[in-house]
């Protein structure tokens, strides 16, 4: 069991998301950085999709009520376990009574805490992710608060393996489309349904603008500022399904990228969609940071997942070797 000691707003239990329930109007929820969750679980020998805690407000403190191995992945941050430093992208052994403190990241937005056996809240509609808007899943359907006690599942291999080793962070190990020069995150996107309805000039604006993620951004979506994209004539779209990563253009002309808690449906023209291989990087982008888009083909978007999958497979294999030492 884990006792939450300090948690400000918007920290939640999440897994890879609730799949297959969009047709009931249920958004997927799930972690904003699935590579970080999978990496933490790989370090511990959990299944990729075991639930962890997504921490996006700091400091965050908790007390382990029993001996358990845990891992910290995601944003580059500083953490202390009973006054010893725990590096980021590292797994360590906690003893009963140990307090873990996680400070604000130096870079990135979200830290993921995973534990051997996973956070064992009840699965609802096949997932342990918190659906905040509807108030189910995760811990009682809500954000974590001081005093909450989270159950931990039975560890695979009963935590007997070695800990105290780390992984190369995903954003270091996996080459991005372009290095984040000038602090601009370059994201690869595919064109979406209404791209061609925009004039050539508007399309050029979309591709050439360095967009800023506005303060009105959260797990539901990121609002972008820095340019306006308008249509010569308004387009009436009927309500249709959308997925995280889609870049929609509302009448204001400032694009919105839907993220993990996005509504299942949308009705704004769709300019583009951030590819799966880059969506987790966007999940680590904070309000105020800068992004730019570059176009890739379907084939290139599919191929871009290979380094991500290879990274996770290699990490899992290496972690298994270490745990067996």
């Amino acid at each position, binding site marked *: 069991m884990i006792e939450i000691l300090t948690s400000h707003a918007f920290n939640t239990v999440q897994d890879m998301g609730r799949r297959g329930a969009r047709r009931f*109007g249920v958004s997927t929820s799930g972690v904003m950085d699935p590579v970080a969750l999978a990496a933490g679980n790989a370090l511990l020998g959990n299944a990729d999709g075991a639930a962890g805690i997504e921490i996006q407000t700091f400091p965050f403190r908790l007390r382990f009520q029993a001996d358990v191995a845990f891992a910290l992945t995601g944003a580059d941050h500083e953490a202390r376990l009973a006054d010893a430093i725990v590096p980021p992208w590292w797994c360590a052994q906690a003893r009963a009574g140990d307090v873990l403190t996680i400070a604000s990241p130096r870079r990135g937005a979200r830290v993921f805490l995973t534990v051997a056996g996973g956070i064992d809240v009840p699965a*609802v509609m096949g997932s342990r992710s918190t659906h905040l808007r509807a108030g189910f899943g995760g811990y009682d359907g809500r954000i974590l608060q001081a005093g909450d006690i989270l159950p931990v599942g039975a560890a695979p291999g009963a935590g007997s393996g070695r800990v105290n080793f780390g992984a190369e962070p995903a954003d270091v190990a996996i080459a991005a489309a372009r290095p984040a020069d000038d602090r601009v995150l370059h994201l690869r996107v*595919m064109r979406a*349904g209404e791209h061609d309805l925009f004039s050539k000039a508007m399309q050029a604006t979309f591709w050439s603008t360095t967009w800023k993620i506005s303060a009105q951004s959260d797990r539901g979506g990121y609002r972008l500022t820095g340019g306006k994209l308008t249509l010569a004539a308004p387009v009436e779209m009927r309500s249709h399904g959308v*997925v995280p990563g889609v870049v929609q253009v509302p009448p204001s002309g400032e694009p919105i990228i839907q993220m993990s808690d996005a509504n299942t449906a949308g009705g704004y023209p769709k300019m583009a969609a951030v590819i799966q291989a880059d969506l987790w990087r966007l999940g680590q982008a904070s309000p105020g940071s800068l992004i730019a888009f570059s176009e890739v083909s379907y084939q290139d978007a599919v191929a871009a997942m290979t380094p991500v999958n290879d990274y996770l497979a290699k990490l899992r294999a290496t972690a298994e070797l270490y745990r067996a030492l």
Partner: protein
Amino acid sequence: MSINHRASPFVGVLEKDPKISLIGTLAMLVEAPGAFDLVQQGRIWALADVVSSWPNVEEAVVGVTNVMLTFEQPPDDIGALTAELIELWHRLSPRNSDGKLIEIPVIYGGELGFDLPALVARSGLSARDVIRIHSEGEYTVCAIASSPGFGYLHGLDRRIFMPRKTVPSLNMRAGSVTIGGMQTGVAALSSPNGWNAIGWASVQMFDPQRQQPSLMLPGDRVRFRIDRIEL
């Protein structure tokens, strides 16, 4: 960008193809051609029924005369998949609104139907006429979307159309019976809501613990019955 542009027109085309476009590598949107009508909606339901059992299709998400497919893995051959969908679209018969009939008893007006006076003023009808028109209609569930268990209902009488509010009501109760534009609905969650509340019903639209979490499903029919009127 649509991925099914025809390179050259061919003779004997009777009907347009649906528009098919990708949203990234794991989702594909199929939009029926032409104006909204229940026949096109029925064809979308029929298409969704078939493709949901295709391999690699995670689910078929019905919208308003469109359906989004989500995939387990990026499909190998987008061209072949697109061709298959177009062929199926032209071949399938529409599914009728043959779902269950859901009867919803409504307390019209009152504290929770706080926008009824505004609708009366806008429509030029009496409150009792608005209520009669709303409760005499039979509605079809086109799609479930936007929030868990929320049904997009078609069939509202145009005399009681009312645009959505520019400033949403901050905390509308779950069960509120609402009108937004040319649609009516029952709020599934207590949350900010830009639709106009004309009454309230004691029904649970969504329960994640139920085997069938959503009370309404596409193709169901809905009738609102006057339980009580509070003017």
